[in-house]
């Protein structure tokens, strides 16, 4: 295996998860497409790692690789997933099943499709506790009510007997969190956990996750397209584009000094609330021209080059390596110095 690309975790703290040189491929009828290309990162206890990028950038595929829940056409082609010192790649499915749900759990975007519609929510939480903690049916039911109380569902004893369709979207996502955190997992993979929710409900859910993280010390991988959510909730951020990690830094650093033109473009294209207050008339948003490349037609050099205002001939020819551009801040761009200069 090729040497993994660099990460910037301090040497002294053992990470909960260390992903090294992950490559995940999709096998189509006539060809193989890379969905995740040489992605490395590490995540410590109690830390939140934001993973941002647009559709098809490989952020969900990275999470599904870690949980070993990839769809049948996808497979991990290279890399290591070191969890608690054990490589999850190649772990037999029965062992993986014990890890999943107990040590690693997931929350997805749409709670309605992740919950079983014909089982009560109390049963669905109790099931996890019976399976992974070995509680009896009676104990598990009581514990389930306790978990519902923990995620602030009103009247938890009554709600436990209800079915998913009887709950609002926000309540269902609370139940998902209760299930995900039922066994005090070390790692929570949250894939667009609030995207389907209204903004006032989203704020409640993020607040709840932060509270629970504080008390349980869970490491969270927060996958989202929403840079605002990342700014408020992540400690570190990874930016992905066309299957690759293109930038990683601590959250303040990344927003203050983006080194990759894609990150710079993303930051510019989000409308900022309150922007109208400081200008006369309507302003234009800065755009990133063109569209996200399809995995079937990745350009030979830097995948962002065709849309990039900084691109030179070199960019179209060779993939830029991930290098430390500023202290603790890595990016994959041949022209990071010019990107940084453009900020001032």
């Amino acid at each position: 295996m090729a040497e993994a690309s660099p990460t910037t975790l301090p040497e002294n703290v053992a990470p909960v998860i260390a992903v090294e040189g992950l490559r995940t491929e999709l096998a189509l009828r006539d060809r193989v497409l890379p969905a995740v290309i040489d992605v490395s990162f590490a995540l410590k206890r109690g830390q939140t790692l934001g993973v941002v990028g647009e559709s098809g950038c490989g952020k969900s595929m990275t999470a599904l690789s870690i949980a070993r829940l990839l769809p049948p056409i996808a497979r991990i082609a290279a890399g290591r997933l070191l969890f608690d010192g054990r490589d999850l790649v190649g772990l037999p499915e029965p062992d993986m099943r014990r890890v999943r749900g107990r040590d690693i759990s997931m929350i997805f975007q749409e709670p309605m499709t992740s919950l079983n519609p014909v089982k009560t929510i109390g049963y669905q939480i109790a099931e996890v506790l019976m399976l992974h903690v070995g509680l009896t049916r009676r104990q598990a039911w009581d514990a389930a009510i306790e978990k519902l109380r923990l995620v602030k569902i009103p009247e938890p004893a009554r709600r436990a007997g209800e079915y998913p369709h009887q709950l609002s979207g926000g309540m269902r996502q609370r139940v998902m969190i209760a299930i995900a955190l039922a066994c005090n997992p070390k790692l929570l993979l949250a894939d667009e956990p609030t995207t389907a929710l209204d903004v006032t409900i989203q704020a409640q859910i993020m607040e709840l996750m932060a509270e629970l993280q504080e008390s349980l010390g869970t490491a969270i991988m927060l996958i989202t397209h929403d840079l605002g959510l990342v700014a408020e909730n992540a400690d570190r951020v990874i930016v992905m584009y066309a299957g690759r990690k293109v930038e990683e830094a601590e959250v303040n650093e990344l927003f203050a000094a983006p080194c990759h033109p894609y990150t710079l473009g993303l930051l510019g294209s989000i409308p900022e609330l309150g922007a109208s207050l400081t200008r006369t008339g309507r302003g234009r948003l800065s755009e990133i021209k063109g569209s996200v490349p399809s995995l079937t037609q990745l350009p030979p050099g830097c995948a962002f080059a065709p849309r990039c205002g900084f691109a030179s001939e070199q960019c179209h020819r060779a993939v830029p390596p991930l290098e430390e551009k500023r202290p603790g801040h890595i990016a994959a761009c041949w022209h990071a110095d010019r990107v940084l200069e453009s900020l001032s």
Partner: protein
Amino acid sequence: MSDAVSPDVPTLEVVDLVKTFPLSSGFLSRVTGGVHAVDGISFAVGRGETLGIVGESGCGKSTAGRTTLKLLEPTSGQIRLLGRDITRLSRAQIRPIRREMQMIFQDPFSSLNPRMTAGQLVGEPLGIHHLARGAERIDRIEALFKQVGLRPEQMDDQPQQFSGGQRQRIAIARALSVKPSLIICDEPVSALDVSIQAQVVNLMMDLQDQYQLSYVFIAHDIAIVEQISHRIAVMYLGRIVEMAETKTLIGEPLHPYTEALLAAVPKPKPGMGRRRKALGGDIPSPINPPPGCHFHTRCPIAVARCRVERPALRTVASGRQAACHLR
């Protein structure tokens, strides 16, 4: 039609619009009540103006848009397009008027017929309204393609060959083809990636400036709404709770719900508003909304009066309205 109208007449005027959906229950599906999806809203949109309508799920913003276009039959109230009352027009009577008002939907994946080519999709309204045929029609389609940033060579491609942002460009070209006065846009960019959202919003603003189009821009994302709107109406459970010029509404919101909505938006600036207090409670069901002010169950400043008496949408200052007993 638009040429004959005096400039003082707003493109669209909606007065006390109500849309109720019947609720049925039981074995014989007897009608047992109604959901007031839109509960008496009034607004006007001038020429070249964008009115943003913002709110969360169940607030009735989409129903308001559809009822205004008479895609849904209004229960009561009045809709005036370019000064003409269209509220009670039959389907046949409304057809020629449809030219003036177009709609763009959220999902460019399901709103475009996959069996038609992009060129046919853009040209179809021209045929329906007998506006152009043959070579003239092709020329018009070509011009429209260029205008929305598509290449004319893509005319023979099918919608599924386009990306989400390009499909929304096709939808915009299609709406634009009949030279409407008004376009109602229901979450037009919320299914798109962030970098593509900016492109589409910029395009819509450019086209508006060029053709003096009126937009009703319906969305849940208040930052996007702020970007494109001259004025904003905030809806909660079927009612407009506040309406003002964009700067006023964003800078000095009056209604507690507007405040909460603004506070809930995550700011793309680390360390700014983390761990802020979220608005509690759930959005009540529109089937059984709370009495009095619909917002009182979640309102941090509600008093006894709010629980029984519906606050009227009052004019607080020129061009500025709010529905709150306390503000």
